[in-house]
């Protein structure tokens, strides 16, 4: 008995891209082979530099800062990839490094500047408005400020879910938090931000 014939009349660009996308298993396989390591690392950078950059950028806001952090992230990945045992997904392992590096960067920056939280918020607004690489659309600026008003952990949860469409299961690996707690925190964050937007937009 033969298989039913499927006729595809139109292949979406998205599907084509997905099919071209190299799987994490192949990348891990290449990285574990000394002869293919360079090629494997190149593919890892090609695949993840953009999503990780945007994840970092949403946390640190400024391009120069995000550029510093992403470079540190990939250096850490390069140093640690041999020790990656595959206990978690490559994707969540990378996001975990990116998240931790961003938090370390933010904390260092906070230590250097001794301004109050309120003043910090004003400084962020004015700096963003002056930033060449920030489209100072009023509504988006308000959204950035609303997210910034969340506690650090809740901010990460919101960003991973809202912007990166990450599943709660994967978020749980990145943030070492239970799925239930993540869901509750995300819904609280959504309510807080919606209220902030209603009051300010």
């Amino acid at each position, binding site marked *: 008995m033969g298989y039913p014939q499927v006729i595809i009349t139109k292949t979406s660009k998205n599907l084509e891209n997905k099919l071209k996308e190299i799987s994490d298993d192949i990348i891990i396989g290449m990285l574990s082979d000394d002869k293919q390591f360079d090629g494997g690392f190149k593919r890892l950078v090609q695949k993840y530099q953009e999503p990780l950059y945007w994840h970092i950028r949403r946390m640190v806001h400024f391009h120069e800062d995000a550029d510093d952090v992403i*470079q540190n992230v990939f250096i850490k990945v390069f140093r640690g990839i041999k020790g990656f045992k595959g206990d978690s997904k490559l994707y969540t392992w990378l996001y975990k490094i990116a998240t931790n590096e961003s938090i370390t960067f933010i904390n260092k920056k906070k230590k250097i500047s001794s301004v109050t939280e309120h003043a910090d918020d004003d400084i962020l607004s004015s700096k963003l408005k002056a930033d060449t690489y920030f489209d100072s659309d009023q509504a988006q600026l308000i959204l950035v400020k609303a997210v910034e008003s969340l506690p650090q952990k809740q901010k990460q949860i919101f960003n991973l879910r809202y912007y990166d469409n990450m599943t709660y299961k994967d978020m749980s690996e990145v943030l070492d938090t239970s799925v239930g707690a993540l869901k509750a925190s995300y819904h609280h964050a959504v309510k807080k931000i919606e209220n902030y937007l209603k009051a300010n937009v």
Partner: protein
Amino acid sequence: MFKKYRIMITEDYFEKLPDRLSEKIESLEDDLLQEAPLLHSMRDGNPYSVPHGYFKNLENQLTQKRSSLKVSYRKYLAVAASLLLLMAIGLQWSSDVVDDSGALAEVELYDYYLDNLDDVDEDLIALLSEDEESLATEMLFDDDEIEIVLDELVSDLNDYELDNLF
């Protein structure tokens, strides 16, 4: 007429199907549109941008950094090898049992590796580490302490000194 194509699915399609389904279910559960319509309307916006060609440059920059890290690792390994050899010689000299022929061989070996650093590789260091494991424990050095000493040694040297160290 329909044009026929080969069926193509990714290798891990069925493996990842459960995750994709649960993701879909979660997105239905979320229902951001009902819960937070304003936030929902802003979901596709991205106020941030990057300089033209940034990601291509980033890829190149990372490749260069990776190459320089490889060189740094060689220097780091060279310093580590020397330190381990020094520890081994020091411990040998301080032990109660004196073996003249053995001590001479250690010094010769040390001199040899100072002159021929290319022969020092990770396997040799691992071998030396295993040999000295019990002695290192007696000296109460842990990995962190050794790493701190190595970091200090390396950080005190500039690139020129590192290049011409041995």
